[in-house]
């Protein structure tokens, strides 16, 4: 096995993108994701790729749309306020059925907010990334190795389903340094007969477009897209389980919140509490089946998050409101402490029971 290297989450993600064959990066600096752009600016010129600091986030996402139209792997990255600016482009990417990777290293909001970590763009990523009916595949890394692995996977899924993959990280994942292995295996390539690569007088023109003025056709486009989404929901949901075998309380957490929860669960187990965790790795598709199955065994759920209970809605839906869902959260750049989560576990243990 190749020697590991010590990398910051943002750098690891950038390197993984390059290894996945991405040679086009467009972005605009914003804390706490700036290292992605900085790394790309150092590396892309050396390998014949394109790094371009756009004049704005809006320009960057539209440059992504341009490259994606040619079938090349392309990405942009930003942090919460910058991602809001990209919303229009995200909708256009969906309307054109184009594959791309978009990275959101979240910080506290709303508005200009702050620069410390957050998960409060959960709704934006999983529900409302822009106007119109569409989804993105949303991947939530919980350590630096996953910043690498999920970036690789994100490009693959984007190509496979012709849609945007989003890496929904938080400031801590972007800034933390951990040893990583960069052995990624083969990059799978997909035929892209739709790409605008020049007809060479051998085929009709390919047109990449999201404008359909005939409602019958636009409806058909939406129906076809949702057929694909259905398949993704059935086959691509990813999650990780920790100590769920005999669990009576189920913590649900992703990203940095899962790291904290892991330590709190270890503490609670020492106190004899049967608690485990389901860690969603894909936030869309949400691992509904795993949660539904857990709801038949546990007496309560706890959503641990750096937002105001946004994931509680997905848990409630997945378990059809069968059990109580508690919220353990910190916001504004604060991270739940081990004690915060431990106290919630104790609280769930007290009040848990059939609702």
């Amino acid at each position, binding site marked *: 096995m190749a020697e590991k290297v010590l990398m910051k989450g943002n750098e690891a993600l950038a390197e993984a993108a390059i290894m996945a064959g991405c040679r086009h990066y467009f972005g605009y600096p914003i804390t706490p994701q700036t290292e992605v752009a900085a790394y790309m600016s150092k590396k892309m010129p050396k390998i014949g790729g394109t790094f371009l600091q756009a004049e704005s986030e809006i320009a960057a996402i539209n440059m992504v749309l341009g490259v994606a139209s040619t079938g090349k792997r392309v990405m942009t990255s930003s942090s919460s306020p910058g991602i809001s600016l990209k919303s229009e482009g995200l909708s256009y990417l969906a309307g054109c059925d184009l594959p791309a990777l978009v990275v959101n290293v979240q910080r506290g909001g709303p508005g200009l907010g702050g620069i410390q970590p957050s998960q409060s763009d959960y709704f934006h990523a999983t529900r409302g990334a822009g106007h119109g009916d569409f989804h993105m595949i949303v991947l939530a890394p919980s350590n630096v190795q996953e910043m690498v692995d999920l970036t690789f996977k994100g490009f693959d899924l984007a190509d496979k389903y012709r849609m945007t993959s989003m890496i929904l990280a938080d400031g801590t994942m972007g*800034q933390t340094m951990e*040893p990583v292995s960069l052995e990624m295996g083969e990059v799978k390539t997909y035929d892209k007969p739709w790409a605008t690569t020049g007809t060479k007088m051998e085929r009709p023109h390919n047109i990449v477009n999201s404008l359909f003025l005939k409602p019958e056709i636009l409806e058909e486009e939406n129906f076809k897209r949702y057929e694909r989404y259905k398949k993704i929901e059935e086959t691509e949901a990813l999650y990780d389980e920790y100590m769920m075998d005999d669990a009576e309380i189920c913590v649900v957490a992703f990203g940095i919140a899962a790291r904290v929860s892991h330590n709190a669960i270890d503490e609670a187990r020492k106190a004899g509490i049967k608690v485990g965790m389901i860690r969603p790795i894909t936030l869309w598709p949400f691992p509904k089946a795993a949660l539904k199955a857990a709801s038949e065994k546990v007496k309560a759920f706890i959503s641990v998050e750096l937002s105001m209970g946004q994931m509680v809605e997905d848990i409630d839906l997945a378990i059809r409101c069968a059990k109580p869902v508690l919220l353990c959260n910190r916001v504004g750049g604060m991270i739940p402490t*081990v004690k915060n989560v431990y106290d919630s576990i104790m609280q769930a243990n007290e009040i848990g029971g059939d609702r």
Partner: protein
Amino acid sequence: MLNLTPKRVTLFSGHYGSGKTNIAVNYALGLKKQFDNVCIADLDIVNPYFRTKDSEKVLNRAGIKLISSEYASSNVDLPALPAETYAILDNPALHAVIDVGGDDRGALALGRYVPSLLKENDYDMLFVVNRFRPLTRDVKSTLEVMNEIESACGMKFNAIVNNSNLGEETTVENIVSSFKYADEISGATGLPIKMTAVNEPLAAEIAQITENVFPIKLYVMQSWKLQEDR
């Protein structure tokens, strides 16, 4: 183990993520054992997280003055340095450690203090290297980073700190494997290796293999291990 023979001002610089901040904090704590009047200045105007300021409690307890932007580790992303940084230059009774920001961009902020430092000429400018960082994996790219920093701040390094590590997973073998790399940097630049920084649990074993081992504690705490708010 390392015997500190410090100059009045010790500066740590290098590729970002090379471990400067943690070494600077440990070095200041070491200095405090020899001198009454010790301060540490955080000149990092680039990195928003993992700052000298995170070690504020440890430094306060040891009686070491911390000079840092009042905005560090807050929600204000303002690259401002406090006026009291000049106290380092104006007070000859002070022993100072300067934690310079990473890369050429971070080192730029040092420029305004350089003429005074050169004039007094009682400083060590230390280049911190970590072979396990992806952009300083080999000697050539490490020397590139070094030249960029020197050009940005207008000051030359006069020694090297080998801080090669893989974080919590670091083994004795990892550190030993970095000796050749450090020697080659030393050979190419003509600069001595001032110290090899080693996390405390491994320090005794490494000290049997090489000289000038500087045992360090990790003061930059990962947030998911925090039991309580900072």
